[in-house]
């Protein structure tokens, strides 16, 4: 930490306890340790953040664009808080994904150099900080106090117009999942007949990473860190191997995915790690299969985007890009989940902010809808027909 004994700022001298792992904070509802998903507004709707040791399932929107973006926020958050990353994708190269991480909004105005480098050059700060102090002139000559470094802030905002500085990505902290060999034939294999080879390899590499990286809860160490696992588009057809193609029951072929999720849960429950998985749930014909997948994950959020659907034209939704459904919040270590109410939520994507908020009507509409019509609107039905045209009587 940048030492500034000369300044009178109060700094609590605390030993680094297990509760003070970088980028985590305790939950307000129970004594779970939480990490941020990278989207502060999402954190607030899933109980304050993602609990360490749990799996967050994102059910993809139709083209997967927004969930892919949310995965990037999650990984960017890991970079900013110096947490480790394990990333896997069958659809695309994970290196490419990492090159596209958005930069933090703060990084422009505030130096976000890693704290380990102690020579902070005063001249690199932006112009407004160089203004001579007129009133507090005695402090002019003091060393500039570093504000609390951004790594201790919980949840950051990201600027999509700029990519993250590649120097922030520490290759020691990043692991990539095994590549999917699309051309490999199914060997008369060592893998059990019920297990998809690709899922098995993925799970084995996650297991190895947890053990070798010291993320297992039984591992003793002074300084602990969190491993963030991100799996892109799990369950898409690219993960299938021949063992699934032979079974004509879709339920049997999804059994591999269930096994994987259970095994992942088993690993995470005894590790300082979280996982964010995006799954194209809309591709599964059988609703029961989707329910089973949801049951095997801890937090479940479904994203529905308006792009290309009729809802895009619905005036009710014009401020938003899609809807968010918080389908499940973990009941881990307690009888009840952290919060019970899951209001209708929608998201909007701005360049510098991805926000999820309660769905509320745009101002022109709210005056002409009936009392209580809000519920219907969230279901997509068009409200009063004459509302959108400007009415001389509208206040």
């Amino acid at each position: 930490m940048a030492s500034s004994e000369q300044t009178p700022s109060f700094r609590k001298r605390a030993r680094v306890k297990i509760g003070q792992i970088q980028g985590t904070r305790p939950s307000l509802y129970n004594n779970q340790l939480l990490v941020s998903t990278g989207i502060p507004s999402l954190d607030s709707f899933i109980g304050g953040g993602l609990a360490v040791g749990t799996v967050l399932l994102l059910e993809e929107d139709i083209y997967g664009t927004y969930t892919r973006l949310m995965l990037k926020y999650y990984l960017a958050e890991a970079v900013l808080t110096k947490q480790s990353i394990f990333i896997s994708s069958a659809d695309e190269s994970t290196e490419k994904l990492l090159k596209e991480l958005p930069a933090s909004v703060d990084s422009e105005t505030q130096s976000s150099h890693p704290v380990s480098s102690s020579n902070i050059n005063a001249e690199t700060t932006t112009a407004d900080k160089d203004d001579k102090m007129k009133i507090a002139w005695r402090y002019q000559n003091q060393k500039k106090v570093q504000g609390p470094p951004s790594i201790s802030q919980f949840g950051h905002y990201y600027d999509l117009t700029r990519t993250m500085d590649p120097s922030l990505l520490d290759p020691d902290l990043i692991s990539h999942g095994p590549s999917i060999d699309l051309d490999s034939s199914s060997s008369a294999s060592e893998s059990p007949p019920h297990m998809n080879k690709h899922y098995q390899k993925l799970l084995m590499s996650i297991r190895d990473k947890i053990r070798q990286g010291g993320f297992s809860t039984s591992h003793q160490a002074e300084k602990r860190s969190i491993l963030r696992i991100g799996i892109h588009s799990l369950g898409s057809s690219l993960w299938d191997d021949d063992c699934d193609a032979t079974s004509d029951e879709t339920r049997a072929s999804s059994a591999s995915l269930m096994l994987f999720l259970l095994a992942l849960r088993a690993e995470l429950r005894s590790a300082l790690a979280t996982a964010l998985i995006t799954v194209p749930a809309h591709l599964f014909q059988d609703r029961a299969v989707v329910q089973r997948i949801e049951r095997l994950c801890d937090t479940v959020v479904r994203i529905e985007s308006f792009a290309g659907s009729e809802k895009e034209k619905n005036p009710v939704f014009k401020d938003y890009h899609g809807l968010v459904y918080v389908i499940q919040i973990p009941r881990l270590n307690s009888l009840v989940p952290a919060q019970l109410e899951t209001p209708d939520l929608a998201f909007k994507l701005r360049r510098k902010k991805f926000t999820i908020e309660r769905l509320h009507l745009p101002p022109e509409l709210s005056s002409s809808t009936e009392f209580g019509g809000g519920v219907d609107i969230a279901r997509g039905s068009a409200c009063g027909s004459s509302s959108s045209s400007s009415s001389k009587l509208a206040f």
Partner: protein
Amino acid sequence: MLAQICQFLGVDSSDFPLNEHVFVADKSKDGGFLIHYFLNLCVKQNRPLCFVGLSQSFNHYCTVAQKLGTNLLSARNNKNLIFIEGLRLISDIVVEGKEKTNPILQLFNGITSPLCNLVYDSLKEIGVSSFQEHFGAPVLIIDDLSVLLSVGVPLKYVVSFVKRLQYLVTSYSPQGSLIVSLCIGEGDGDEEDTWVHLSHLGTLSIEVSNLKSGYCKEVHGQIQVEWKDSYLKPRKVHYKHTQYRLSDKNIELFASGMSSAVL
């Protein structure tokens, strides 16, 4: 919480369940509280208990039990409780090289013996054996069976596994009790069929479901209880119904329409 549910069921909290084969269907997402109820109740009665956790780790039950005033860690240390980490067993199927001897994998082919033997040996570890009388009727709890269906164990082998457990648990003297939970997703044919099988086999079936009229802050759901023939004597079928509201450490049970929010 334990007292409220015992009162609702009309049972004596000092020896329930005795010779019961209880099957719990969870059609909502909250139903887990009944497993915590049985777990805590049996530990408080100091009965030898074998818990097969297929969907959560031991810590989860431990933490909730703490809130309800029971110490599972010390129960385990005193050999009153043995916890089989089923989650680990299942995840071991995915680990290369461990499949041959994996008891759950054998279930896929209808071979229930390895898993049943595991349960039998675990019970032996805490002093329960068929060859001698022991203190306290043993209890076997499985949470939850739908995990086996999800990973692809065929329905008939899941049912025959439960039959074997029934047989196992009644082979002791005094006879033990069996409690099995099953999550049922909406429209999930396999799970629904398994539930009908279990209902026919059990002595007591409890169904936890959401209210048909949707989510409500004050009433989380309803519980339907059906008492059937006991294991050794016929008895007339009778039903009980209630609505409930869960809080962090407690549960409120009230008849339909009697929620404090409505009155």
